[in-house]
């Protein structure tokens, strides 16, 4: 049988990451399964969902939706949603926790909170351009559009799609 000491350690191994995640600081690796407790509200048979989509210009100059699978390949298409939600990978300087006074905390947040260097941005632009070229899009610019979608809860279809925000990224 596992000992009391082992059981106590096991409990701590579970509890510490669990509490950290509640504070938005999920560690890895940890015995944590996906949670996602957010909800949607139905009002008069409708509900609202926000979507972000990546657009690029076709060769004729028209903006077109970028097909996630082809664009991201061999990266999983799911990662595109993450990419567009984090400013297409262009990192901006963010304040460090605890006013940046603790060295180890600054070190841990160095990738998350520091801005990209010019060389890193150039590399990222080339990475995006390579993918656009592969999909026969123009490589000079992309945009991320944020929509508010009104969805019918009786048939699940989008009733209205309203543009909330557009962000352009110059790649040249």
């Amino acid at each position, binding site marked *: *049988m*596992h*000992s*009391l000491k082992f*059981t106590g350690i*096991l409990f701590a191994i*579970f509890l510490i990451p*669990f509490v*950290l*995640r*509640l504070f938005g*600081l*999920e*560690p*890895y*690796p940890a*015995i*944590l*399964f*996906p*949670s*996602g*407790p*957010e*909800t*949607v*509200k*139905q*009002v008069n048979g409708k*509900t609202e*969902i926000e*979507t*972000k989509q990546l657009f690029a210009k076709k060769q004729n100059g028209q903006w077109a939706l970028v097909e996630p699978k082809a664009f991201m390949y*061999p*990266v999983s*298409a799911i*990662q595109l*949603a*993450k*990419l567009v939600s*984090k400013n297409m*990978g*262009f*990192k901006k300087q963010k304040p460090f926790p605890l006013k940046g006074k603790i060295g180890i905390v600054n070190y*841990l947040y160095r*990738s998350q909170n520091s801005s*990209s260097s010019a060389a*890193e*941005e150039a*590399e*990222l632009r080339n*990475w995006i351009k390579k993918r656009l070229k592969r999909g026969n899009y123009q490589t000079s610019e992309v945009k991320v559009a944020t929509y508010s*979608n009104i*969805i019918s*809860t*009786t*048939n*699940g*279809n*989008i009733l209205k799609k309203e543009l909330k925000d557009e962000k352009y990224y110059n790649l040249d």
Partner: protein
Amino acid sequence: MTSIDKITYKFWSAVVRSTATNVFSLAIFRILTGTFLLLVLTINYAWMADLPLALFTPPVLSPINLFATGFPHKAWLLIADFTLLLTPIAIILGIKPRMATLLFALTRLLVLNYQYAFGKIDHEILLATMLVCLAFSGWGQRLAIWPDKASRFDSTTKSLALLAVLICFGYFSAAFEKAIFWLNFDMNTTGSARWFYNSLYNYQREPLLAPLLKMSPFWVFKAMDITGVIFELLPFAALLYSRKLWQSWLLLAAGFHLVNLLFFNINFIVNGIVYLAFIDYTTIYATVRRLIATPWFKAAVAGIIIYAAYVRVVSILTFEKIGIVFLPYSVNMQLYGMVSLWLLICTTMLIGILYSKEETTLSRADILSQQIHKSNLIDHQTTI
């Protein structure tokens, strides 16, 4: 013995009663696991070498955030990919299975850490957890070309008991926040609908049965919220109550994943193999042992392994995705393949439950005799 000692002892006794099996059963399960890792889990990681450094944002509290400054060189990732190909073959054939199992688990944990540096933790922790637990279960001592020697760390009962408790912990972590926000009488607020519409419109996952759920009344989502959270909160109770109830909950879990795949196109197939660890395969051990001694069976296994290895080597070198080996790589074929695999897992579990005995001789002996357990003799003296 203090009262806290007694509670701990009672707790683990109940867990062992629900989970105990033997090295013969686990040897069969080891072969199943290796086959799964070789034929189903065919994801490669060398593509990460081409990712720009700007995308390197690992989880703040993770090993690579401490030690790495960017994505690894392609050569390292190729070594990792070949490790993830060769170790399952070693696990199937029983070539130093403990070392192969641990190597697979550690490599996968590491490459996933790099993948999550892209910004999303995918919570595929259960497979590595199972492999680490079962590496010390004695599962490599039978049906093996180069079997593991018995180690003082080996314990079939302890490793399965630990795995079961970790599964329960995991589900509790999934349920806790949902229980706070989802369990209420507000019929106009639901979390399942958010998952569904997000799958459909943000991730374009196109689930197989999406049309059915799209037309369903809104209260169906609320019912899914409540049943989902209750299901995720139940495993500890099932585990502590009885072996049959624990196995039934595992069957329910497999069914839950199948529903998730059909309605949300969220696939956690890596969890499926973990649930199968708790089925007792002892009755087929003798048959399997006879079978693998026949020349035609050896030839068939060699053929399958060589073909799968060839397909995977090509995939590693060309970055071409293959999904389930032996199935064409098209979205629909792979999706139907996964549904079939879940149905197979559910069926195996159902058969396992129907033939399951409430309390095995092994677990009874284990609970009654602490002395035997302390020396781990129970794991090595079991006979069929």
